[in-house]
């Protein structure tokens, strides 16, 4: 149990540094953004307020009018040293969904200031929510970029602190164009798309209530994630394709490959989980990955080399090419499948460990099997496409050199892919 939790936390720390907290800046921040700009001869302020889950709840039912009014009173604008009052021109309020089924808040307010006749020096200070933590940003100019995209996307860079700017001074000159107040956003822009930090697959196991429907839906979702995950780079798609094309695989082979990938991935997740649990004092799981990468790389190199060697021999022995199928050996099929499923997906591991610590082992196992099945489905799909494409190719009229070269070419592709994987893995293994 101890080690499980340890491992879980270490994993969370190493692999998913951005914990699944719905508001990217934490559940109790109050974030503020002001854009001071001149349009025509008039000064405007676009003020954005972003409340995370807890302050939203504390605020209760938000009266946007009262809020806008209070915001206007607590921002202080001086032009050429003289205080300039700001008047509320418009506002927009939305409650983007946050964590735990809770709401967050985004309020945009357009404030109108005085007109200026010529160049003027302005000073701006935002005194709203002075004590509360959160992102505080002030920019001057209609086209000045905002580091948070006006509180829509907070930088997650580990080398930057949350911005803490509440005051600014600037020289401004009236524009030549017409006087147009800044626009309020609406639709998706108002609903702040950056709200839900990544939770995805790993959040499934933590569902608080498990009804049959929830379980089925979770399994379907896990499968979907597995399928989507397989489409990200480096899950042996190239290798599977090259192999099936080169070895004249049949749909049956493609299906078998899928099965092997599922089994390998499931077993791999369990094995890596158990190994790191047992050896957690000595091994940081993070450091196992380069080794696994290396092993799969070498495995693929081995497959490529063996296929190439077989081809070479056959070319020497039968000069006339013919169509009788060389039985695709189960051993090499196994090797290809293993290389595709060997690398356990980190989120699958996190799910396993979370499941154990939540005492939902069976559910966790099911989720991982579903995830692996999804993974395999994608790979089988790719494999089938390769098989179909190849047979179409074969039926085409231009039989001959190209087709005869295919097996050797595919072996070279596999070999190259394996070498690339190995070379990439080697420097990380230390």
């Amino acid at each position, binding site marked *: 149990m101890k080690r499980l939790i*340890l491992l879980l936390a270490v994993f969370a720390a190493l692999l998913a*540094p951005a914990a699944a907290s719905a508001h990217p800046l934490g559940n109790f921040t109050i974030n503020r953004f002001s854009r001071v700009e001149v349009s025509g001869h008039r000064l405007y302020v676009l003020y954005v307020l972003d409340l995370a889950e807890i302050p939203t709840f504390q605020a209760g039912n938000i009266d946007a009018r009262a809020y806008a009014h209070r915001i206007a009173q607590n921002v202080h604008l001086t032009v050429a040293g003289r205080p300039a009052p700001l008047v509320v021109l418009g506002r927009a309020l939305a409650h983007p969904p946050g964590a735990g089924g809770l709401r967050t808040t985004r309020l945009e307010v357009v404030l109108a200031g005085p007109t200026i006749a010529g160049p003027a020096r302005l000073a701006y200070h935002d005194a709203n929510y002075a004590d509360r933590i959160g992102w505080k940003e002030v920019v001057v100019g209609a086209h000045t970029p905002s580091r948070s995209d006006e509180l829509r996307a907070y930088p997650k860079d580990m*080398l930057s602190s949350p911005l803490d700017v509440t005051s600014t001074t600037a020289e401004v000159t009236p524009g030549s164009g017409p006087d147009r107040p800044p626009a309020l956003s609406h639709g998706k822009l108002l609903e702040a798309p950056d709200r839900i930090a990544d939770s995805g697959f790993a959040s499934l196991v933590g569902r608080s209530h498990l009804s049959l429907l929830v379980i089925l839906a979770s399994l379907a979702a896990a499968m979907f994630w597995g399928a989507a995950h397989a489409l990200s780079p480096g899950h042996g798609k190239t290798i599977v394709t090259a192999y099936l094309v080169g070895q004249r695989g049949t749909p049956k082979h493609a299906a078998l490959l899928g099965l092997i990938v599922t089994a390998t991935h499931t077993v791999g997740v369990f094995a890596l989980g158990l190994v790191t649990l047992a050896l957690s004092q000595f091994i940081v799981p993070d450091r196992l990955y380069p080794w696994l990468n290396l092993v799969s790389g070498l495995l693929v190199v081995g497959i490529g080399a063996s296929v190439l060697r077989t081809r070479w021999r056959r070319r020497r022995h039968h000069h006339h090419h013919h169509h009788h199928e060389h039985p695709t050996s189960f051993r090499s099929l196994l090797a290809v499948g293993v290389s595709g499923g060997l690398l356990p997906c980190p989120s699958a591991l996190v799910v396993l460990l979370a499941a154990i610590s939540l005492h939902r082992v069976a559910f966790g196992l099911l989720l991982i099997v579903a995830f692996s099945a999804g993974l395999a489905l994608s790979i089988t799909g790719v494999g089938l496409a390769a098989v179909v494409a190849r047979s179409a190719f074969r039926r085409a009229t231009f039989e001959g050199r190209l087709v005869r070269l295919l097996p050797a070419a595919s072996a070279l592709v596999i070999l190259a892919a394996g070498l690339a994987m190995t070379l990439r893995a080697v420097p990380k293994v230390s």
Partner: protein
Amino acid sequence: MRTRRLVFGGTAAGLTAVAILLGGALRGSPSARSAPVLSPPPASETTVAQVAKLQAELRANVDDVNALDALGLAYQQRARETGDPTYYTKSDEVLSRALRLAPRDLLATSGLGSLALSRHRFRVALALGRRAHTISPTTARNYGVIGDALVELGRYRAGFQAFDTMARLRPDVSSYSRVAHARVLIGDVRGAFSAWRLALEASLGQGETEAWTRVQISKTAFSVGRLGPALAQAQAALRAFPGYAPAYDALAWAEYGRGRLHAAIAAEQAAVDRIPLPQYVSVLGDLQRTAGLTADARRQYALIGVIQRLLVANGVDTDLETALFDVDHGIRPRASLALARRAQRERPSIDGDDVLAWALERTGHCREALGYSQRALRLGTRDALKLFHRGAIEQCLGHRTAARSWYRRALALNPRFSVLWAPVARRELR
């Protein structure tokens, strides 16, 4: 040896063989903080400036392990100063990066250990502390991480041994405050105060560190009914580090102890306004309820529900503080008993034992409760709330005389030890 006697002074009841020097994370402290992990920055260099400098250095050379270490630790200090958990995430990323670059890096390992302590992942902290210790057996701070984790896991003998070694290696603020806390745990309040004085002297002029030390002194003073010093230290903490939420919380307790309910509400509200931690919010609700502000109190209690939902959404379902809140307020008794059991398994310290004992009493499992209460009091800690819980358990078992004597002991320590329960104890004694 001389140092040892010097720091000891008191007797270690029931733990005679063990040198009791240091204590770790404090009950109810928001971020079970280990003593400051940074060597105190020179007075001229604030944490903000230090962070900015290190960020700039790292932007020039992102692989500078020493700078990564320093920045990771500085982020943790910022998290303590602001209460903003985003800094923990950043610290995690920076230190993990350092560890990837240099897997046997000492500061990154122990830094991740103290981070785990802050996040209440005590088993992780223990493993990381031990790993740091194997890397460098003579570094004092590793013993701090190990000892803090052991103490929170209820392994006091081993924890105090670690502290003993640590203090022999390096007597400083971190060691003195652990000495003090360990003495509080074994009920040696006088000895604790003398150690706190040393810690305070060593922390003067260090902003947040001084404020933190003063808050601890204030709480120790409150726990034994010394309300004058409790108030003075809380106020001094606010002077040392203005706006410090834990200081407002300590101030609220001191004011409550002096019977100034409305001053207490104002102070706790200030703490909640800065950081809405569940323990602050629940105290605020209790204070408001006592003052007859039922509607306000209900809002605070509802806010706790929201915070719990967020914790669950973030994968935390074993929080001791929220378990205590549920048990105290009779919320879903069966579920809260299960929660308390989980929390106690995660954190089998005297605090975990006490909350579980209390949850068992509230649900009528008084015989089982007695065992956990005995465990909770096994160190001889003079904690009025734990004594009161024991009284209630004895009463539930029909031991009237014993119950009255426990209630009397609790009230003798501090007639207002708890907003909710001190009045109950008084009523029972009538």
